[in-house]
């Protein structure tokens, strides 16, 4: 937050113009980001006939929520024609534990790697980091063998494991890089106060990590919620997450394409993620460490 707060009363015309420009730029960007959403929503509100005839970009002539209703309640995912609603919980059961576990592990790794530097901490970190670059297609086959031999094939637990393992490198990265800039004095002071490794983590470090927790949760939730490959490969039938259902609805190559339903499904699938963004976004608090430490 580098502006000087009081310039709200600053009546200089130069300032007003700058401010105006700032908003203009932001609004233009917002338009760029919103345009596709607009297309999606308007498409999801059209009837199939209207889509077949006309342009994709135009506004719907008649607004109908049939597609939404259909996607949620009736769309066929394979032989099951009760919409994507039944897959919602599968995704929740998978995403929530995986996000929590990987974020927690990332936080504590980052903390241990920066505030309790041991010999080789940087090397350990660098090694962990490469996990970020391994293409998921590569791990698919060995992973299925491993899961099979662990008896976790086609189970939610197995999926959570996979997502935690491959999310770890990211969360560790986020937290480590955030903690690097938190002054060590805080940890020292808490140590003197008699707090141990975990107490310091819970009581001092975590409370000032909100912005990065938000980032980590957003990332992990998005990755896990939107993951298709692992979900399709390591969960079967009734356990399938929502994205598999989405894929099954959107990604058919033969048969009639119901764009309105596709879009409604896509939006429905994206809603939880959006919700997480909106809720988590609030916690981008400002200037937390300011003023605690000199230097």
């Amino acid at each position: 937050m580098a502006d000087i707060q009081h310039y709200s009363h600053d009546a200089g015309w130069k300032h007003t113009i700058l401010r105006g420009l700032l908003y203009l730029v932001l609004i233009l960007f917002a338009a760029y980001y919103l345009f596709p959403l607009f297309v999606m929503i308007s498409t999801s509100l059209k009837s199939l006939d209207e889509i077949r005839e006309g342009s994709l970009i135009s506004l719907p002539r008649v607004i109908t929520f049939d597609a939404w209703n259909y996607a949620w309640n009736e769309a066929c995912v394979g032989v099951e024609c009760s919409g994507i609603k039944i897959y919602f919980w599968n995704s929740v059961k998978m995403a929530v534990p995986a996000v929590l576990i990987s974020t927690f592990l990332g936080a504590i790794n980052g903390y241990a790697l920066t505030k309790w530097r041991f010999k080789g901490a940087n090397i350990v970190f660098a090694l962990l980091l490469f996990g970020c670059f391994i293409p998921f297609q590569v791990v698919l086959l060995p992973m299925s063998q491993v899961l099979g031999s662990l008896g976790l094939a086609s189970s939610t637990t197995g999926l959570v494991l996979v997502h935690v393992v491959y999310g770890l490198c990211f969360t560790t990265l986020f937290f480590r890089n955030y903690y690097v800039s938190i002054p060590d004095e805080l940890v020292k002071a808490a140590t003197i106060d008699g707090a141990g490794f975990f107490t310091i983590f819970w009581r001092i470090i975590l409370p000032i990590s909100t912005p990065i927790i938000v980032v980590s949760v957003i990332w992990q939730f998005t990755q896990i919620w939107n993951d298709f490959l692992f979900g399709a490969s390591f969960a079967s039938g009734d356990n399938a997450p929502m994205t598999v259902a989405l894929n099954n609805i959107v990604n058919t190559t033969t048969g009639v394409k119901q764009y309105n339903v596709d879009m409604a499904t896509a939006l429905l699938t994206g809603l939880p993620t959006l919700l997480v963004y909106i809720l988590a976004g609030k916690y981008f608090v400002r200037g937390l460490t300011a003023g605690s430490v000199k230097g």
Partner: protein
Amino acid sequence: MGASSSTESNLTASIQRHLSKIVVAPSFAASLFFVYGFILWTGYMAFSKSRMLPVWDWAGLRQYERLWQMERWHVAIENLLIFGGLFIVICLFLGCLLAVLLDQRIRAEGVLRTIFLYPMALSFIVTGTVWKWLLNPGLGLESMMHDLGWTSFKFDWLVNSDMAIYTVVIAAVWQASGFVMAMFLAALRGVDQDIIRAAYMDGASLPRIYFGIIIPSIRPVFLSAIVVLAHLAVKSFDLVIALTGGGPGYSSDLPATFMYTMAFQRNQLGVGAASAMMMLATVMAIIVPYLYSELRGGKKNG
């Protein structure tokens, strides 16, 4: 106080001392097994005769030879360089810019932040589909402009073999830049206010403060952002599939789609593994030196 209690306290003391290592150990072990173990596995596969399922018969360098003889692989690699480079640079720039703009006590910050971020919420499949419409000359922007009377407007990258890869950049940037913005914003919020004030006193203009002080002091975030973006670039599979399907022809193929096609569609697991190893090697070649300098510098700062 008996001897036992003192050994006990020695034990707890030594646990305390090694706690940081103990805590990192499980993650490290998991990574050794699930990342490095699997890389080894893949490395072996690249030397095997595997086609549909993994087999352990040794094939020497044959798979690599075949890989490099494929015209399509060359296209994929070239595309990765174009796409990866542009994607990372543009996302960093946009993400940084948006974060800085949002950092100006914007009235509707929450709303705007969500708007910039939401594309991330959509799966790549959806992003690809929507952008396919928007960029399609006959359906999307171009026809809209024509309808609005600007008939000379031409934007046919999607259907142009030479330009198709850039449409992937557009869509990918649209999707990922918001997240980069969030990362930067989080870091900006951690910067000490007094430092910024000091910079004002030094007479620095706002851009100067950001580029001279704030952004350098959140340098570690660049590492995060670059890693995340490189990851997305290397793995951007769904998006290409949904947006261009690798086309026209295979002109917008990327190593990820190439590898997938080979390993799972064409039963050329060996070639797929070889291409995966090449991808990893490419990434390492870029990331390792960067990481080295970054962590080096970090030590000096800490």
